[in-house]
């Protein structure tokens, strides 16, 4: 047992911090919450790519760095801590590359991975549909074979990154006769195709991240199929472990936490800093305790991935826990800020750069996207505790 990072890992963390602090000092961008999913900055992504920080864990033969998942956790933890605008490359780096490494053909690896590694693949995730959310296996979007192509017809919704994408990861039904989960396939292709159209969904904060995506007779070559036809649902389960396993489920609002700590130190009520109020101290210390334990769940997932094992219940646990933590953080920030907490980010009187208000709203979705907490708990109950329905 060892809770220490190696000297190389400590140095790496510092290297990432120095880079990000340098960029902030140069005024290239400002820290924001949810930056990993909302802040699209192609130039930032290009600079990150230049440092070899996209595809860190992929095999060197495909242009990756062949490094550990713990190293990736360190990298992404710091990106999140500093609220860095990594949205352009986050999905491709987090899960698409892994899917291609795992299931892709040599041609796909040679063609696609370098594009991602250069920071040029802005990926939308085409999974959910209006009638298929938690019950993804019931999806209806069709991929019909036609010679050397597939024809895609249907509609996706809640498509993350849909407004910025130039590539889409798509799950579609290739065998309508088979039982639901056994007739689904995965595809990955460029979106600049006739028949693909998007419609932005404005979220509760007023921001745009999710989209509806419509596929009207879209023709894609069969070489866009990832892995085996009709095995997509089982392949995706593997990908979901990656999607769920990251620090973004715990640290996406770290800039808010930092701002909150600063706020209570600086803000006085009745002549005394809020930080002297026992209730405030207790709330913030409790958040710190919960954050630090959250990091242990997260790093535990990294340890398992580096052992070559699939962290299915472990990543379900870390995501369900982490997202609940973030909701508690935002709620605490609102409570501590009191009346000021309700001010919009645009108000001149708003505390903490309006992040409390914003995070309180945006965090409502965390326990829903990428696996609702209820589904995740079902996974833990079934896989680990072996409690099954009947």
């Amino acid at each position, binding site marked *: 047992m060892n809770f220490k990072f190696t000297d190389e890992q400590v140095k790496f963390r510092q290297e990432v911090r120095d880079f990000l602090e340098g960029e902030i000092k140069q005024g290239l961008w400002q820290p924001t919450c949810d930056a990993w999913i909302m802040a699209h900055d192609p130039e930032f992504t290009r600079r990150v790519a230049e440092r070899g920080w996209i595809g860190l864990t992929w095999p060197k033969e495909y242009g990756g760095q062949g490094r550990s998942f713990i190293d990736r956790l360190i990298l992404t933890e710091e990106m999140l801590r500093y609220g860095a605008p990594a949205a352009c490359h986050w999905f491709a780096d987090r899960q698409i590359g892994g899917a291609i490494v795992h299931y892709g053909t040599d041609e796909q690896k040679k063609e696609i991975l370098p594009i991602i590694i250069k920071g040029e693949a802005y990926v939308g995730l085409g999974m959910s549909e209006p009638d298929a959310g938690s019950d993804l296996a019931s999806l209806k979007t069709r991929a019909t074979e036609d010679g050397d192509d597939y024809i895609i017809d249907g509609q996706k919704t809640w498509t993350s990154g849909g407004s910025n994408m130039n590539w889409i990861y798509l799950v579609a039904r290739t065998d309508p006769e088979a039982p639901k989960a056994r007739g689904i396939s995965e595809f990955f292709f460029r979106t600049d195709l006739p028949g693909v159209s998007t419609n932005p969904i404005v979220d509760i904060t007023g921001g745009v991240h999710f989209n509806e995506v419509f596929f009207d007779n879209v023709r894609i070559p069969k070489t866009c199929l990832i892995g085996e036809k009709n095995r997509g649902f089982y392949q995706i389960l593997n990908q979901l472990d990656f999607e769920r396993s990251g620090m973004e489920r715990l640290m996406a609002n770290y800039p808010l936490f930092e701002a909150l700590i600063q706020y209570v130190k600086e803000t006085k009520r009745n002549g005394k800093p809020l930080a002297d109020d026992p209730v405030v101290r207790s709330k913030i210390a409790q958040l710190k305790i919960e954050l630090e334990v959250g990091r242990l769940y997260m790093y535990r997932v990294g340890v398992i991935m580096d052992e070559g094992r699939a962290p299915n219940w472990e990543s379900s646990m870390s995501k369900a826990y982490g997202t609940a933590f973030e909701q508690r953080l935002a709620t605490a920030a609102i409570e501590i800020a009191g009346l000021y907490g309700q001010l919009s980010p645009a108000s001149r009187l708003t505390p903490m750069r309006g992040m409390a208000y914003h995070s309180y709203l945006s965090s409502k979705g965390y326990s829903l996207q990428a696996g609702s907490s209820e589904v995740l708990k079902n996974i833990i109950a079934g896989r680990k*505790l072996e409690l099954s329905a009947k």
Partner: protein
Amino acid sequence: MDLVLTEEQEMLKKMASDFLTDKFPKAVVKEIEETESGYSPEIWKEMAELGWMGLVFPEEYGGVDMSFLDLAMLLEEMGRACLPGPYFSTVMLGGLPILDVGSDKQKQEYLPGIASGETIFTLALTEASARYDAAGVEARATADKDAYILNGTKLFVPDAHIADYMLCVARTSDGAKPEDGITIFIVDAKSPGISCSLLKTIANDKLCEVVFDQVKVPKENILGEPDKGWAEVKKTVERAATAKCCDMVGCLQEALDMTVAYAKERKQYGQPIGGFQVIQHYCVDMFTDVEGARLSAYQAAWMISEGLPCTQEVAIAKAWASFASPRVMALAHQIHGAIGCTIDHDLQYYTRRASADGVTFGDASFYQEVVAREMGL
């Protein structure tokens, strides 16, 4: 970073689990709880023969030179078995401080007796204020030629009534801060002027009120430096808190295992209740809490093992275990239904033990404040 136990740790856990399961079925735990001494001298001897008391002592003192992390594994098994008796008091509260700051003479005098199981120790620290900080120490030790005269009342002292020696924390001078002027004394429990009375507690864990009335302690029985004892007291509290976390991990894991097993077995409405989603989610919530307790306890234990400063990590572990424990036990009881609320069911051993652990050597509020201070609030 890795979370793998060494082969030695696996063996120690297995051996401990086998021994404790064999020697401490709940009927025996119940019997021992009802005795005044709170332990079985026969089994105590066997534990000493297994090398458990001197687990982390160097071989020259009769120990087996294992690490604090190894000891943490053993403590977890003891929690699982609801081990009654003065193991924690003797080793954690007596042996480790002596090992840490004792003179060679003191180590030679006391450690072999602990390792062999001959000597029982405890620590008399908390007083009426029931605090673990220096300001809570009001007991006084006044210099008198070659000795000190000790006066004061200590509360919640575990196993004082059977201890051969007590480490007593008293104030020898007044300084600018409450931490200044604190001294640790090794006190012979048979000294004239000491009176012990057993407190009735929820966990039947033999806590005592100990009155020191003009107790004479030789100067050479000062442990560490006079007036500068608080640093070691703080370290002892941190080790003890971490040890309690390990005990709680064992308790809570066992409660979880019992609960999951019950949910698979108990049928209502024609099916095991473990098939109902609410019950499943309750079990997952318990499991999440236990995993958090385990990871944070191991982290603190590992840092202590490595000699790294870990005030924050200990605070995080104990705060977490202390607030998670009532949540876990509440769900355990809820899932067990009425049968879990009877004295004959085993669950209540864990409910009582975990609740005592939760408040001992610092509760959640205490450690929240430690974390707040470490954060610079």
